[in-house]
């Protein structure tokens, strides 16, 4: 089974949100997480920045995603340490629901990056001058996960991503299914570990 639509490639406009340390509170404020689920979040994406009045949803014309050129951009360009703060996966669910399929940043907070890979958003790490060059390029941008390359105008920028992450994103693989291929190794580990560290294996208690 696939966990999400595969993203071997993301293509389209790239919205420049060139700030460092964009935290998950900014991506989706806690008060915008209204239900016990993974959907209904796109409207609250960047709520504190996107709206002058988040309750009445009055759009702030100064915010990049309110610029008609960048509405529902599939690619986001941003600053270092993107996705820092709370581990809330809602940040990635909100971005995905909004239409984002790749985020290009000099660096990512680790939990956020892991959440991207498990939900069909390609986290592309490129040096800050390159991110700025891409932001300055005219026209459509492509993130080619298979070739590990960002194409912007006449330029092409290679990026690194580990093989497992690339496979999960490109094929929409479900991590649990993937891991269950190692079922025997897991069982063998636990059998040996239970003998070595019996205190780890709790019995149900009140």
């Amino acid at each position, binding site marked *: 089974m696939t966990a999400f639509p595969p993203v071997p490639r993301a293509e389209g406009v790239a919205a420049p949100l060139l700030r460092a340390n964009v935290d998950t*509170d900014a991506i989706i404020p806690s008060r915008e997480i209204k239900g016990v689920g993974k959907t209904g979040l796109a409207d609250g994406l960047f709520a504190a920045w996107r709206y002058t009045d988040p309750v009445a949803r009055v759009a702030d014309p100064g915010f990049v995603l309110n610029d008609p050129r960048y509405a529902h951009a599939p690619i986001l360009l941003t600053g270092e340490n993107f996705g820092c*703060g709370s581990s*809330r996966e809602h940040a990635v669910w909100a971005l995905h629901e909004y239409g984002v399929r790749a985020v290009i940043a000099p660096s990512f*907070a*680790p939990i956020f990056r892991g959440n991207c890979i498990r939900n069909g958003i390609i986290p592309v790490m490129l040096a800050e001058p390159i991110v700025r060059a891409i932001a300055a390029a005219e026209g459509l941008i492509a993130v080619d996960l298979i070739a590990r390359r960002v194409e912007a105008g006449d330029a092409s920028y290679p990026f690194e991503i580990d093989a497992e992450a690339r496979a999960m994103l490109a094929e929409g693989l479900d991590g649990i299914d993937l891991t269950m291929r190692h079922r025997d190794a897991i069982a063998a580990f636990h059998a040996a570990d239970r003998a070595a560290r019996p205190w780890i294996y709790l019995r149900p208690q009140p």
Partner: protein
Amino acid sequence: MPEPRTLFDKLWEQHRIAHLDGEDLIAIDRVFLHERTGAVALRSLAASGRRVADPARVFAVTDHIVDTRPGRTGTLMPGGDAFLSATREETRAAGIRLFDVDDPDQGIVHVISPELAIVLPGTTLVCPDSHTCSQGALGALAWGIGSTEAEHAMATGTLRLARPKTTRVTFDGVLAPGVTAKDMALTLIARFGAGGGQGHAIEFAGPAVRALDIEARLTLCNMATEFAAMSGFVAPDAKTIAYLEGRRYAPTGADWDAAVAAWRDLVSDEGARFDREIGIDAADIAPMVSWGISPQSAVCVDDAVPELPDSGLGVEGYARALDYMGIAAGDRLTQLPIDVAFIGSCTNSRLSDLRRAAAIVAGRNVAPGVKALVVPGSSAVRRAAEAEGLDRIFTDAGFEWRMSGCSLCFYAGGEGFAPGSRVLSSTNRNFEGRQGPGVRTHIASPETVAASALAGHIADPRTVSR
């Protein structure tokens, strides 16, 4: 002669089940859930027809959105009841122990997990909460994950992880009086940036770390996520073992003896190589307070708001921070009047935090117009504090004394502070809107918050005699 290994190497290798392509498959010993994200993970897991592999090693708590006013029954957050009821239903169906609102062991996940010895040295422990790294203080490898990873950990007993690099942060020397673990963490982040620990697992070491008690080590490790590290931890020692002995989920009898023997090896070997070493002299650390909207924007409480070149921020980020915080370059932090003083959160809400704050507050009064509140990190902390009269010290001074929970560390709706209000907070995050729309949060130690509550402006705790 075996190659010397770091503590991280030992923890990682002991839990590695398989090498994958670019990642390792790591055994997960403990999973802890809370109602804000745990119910989503459990629902999704059940919906995919999977089950929790070993429910006895999974725990859950209600902490994030529970009301903390005396006499509470549920939550003030609009729609919050759905999170509480889903957590109850899903944990019951999965056979997971839930510490609910009225449970005597209820509290913030990273406070109660050590209290109950759910976290142990040498364990891998994960929770869909970024401050899970706090629990590295017990000599565990503990880190925050997303909901999907929580599903994975529960269904398979494992996680797929790229191996991080290692940093050792050595605090030499001795802390001055009135300077705490919170100030150590803020100093590290201010010097090396909020992204400074990216891609690294961090061992906190050195005499100033060994001198910290377990609760202070929890505070130090709590802030590792604000440094963008995968986790932070401290090698277990005699203090760790003494802290855990006899606690609810700690091993007993022969298991305890075997565990203690195993824990003695959980140290970085002499000569072990780290990818990076950072050294900080503890004697150079002063009480810290943040001025901006990232934990890296912190300075000594006696200092002024820095100029742009000293801020470590770009032109736009610096302007944004000043504008949001309603301050200007050169403003003395101790001249900023405050509206709120908040003591609580997984960073600084343990008994020792409350004792130190109470020592400053005792016999004095909160400044007129300041709303001050203390939210104990757990019901056990609350009871212990009441048994020694700390609640009376706070309430006599004009503080509110609350029930345990995450409370106003963040704003989820229902209860909040006025837009534009200036909050001195013992929490870990000063992000825009973190404690409510437009709210200006300065993070500091509990003693700095207490001193400021009395003064009515940001104040240096060293100037308040005890």
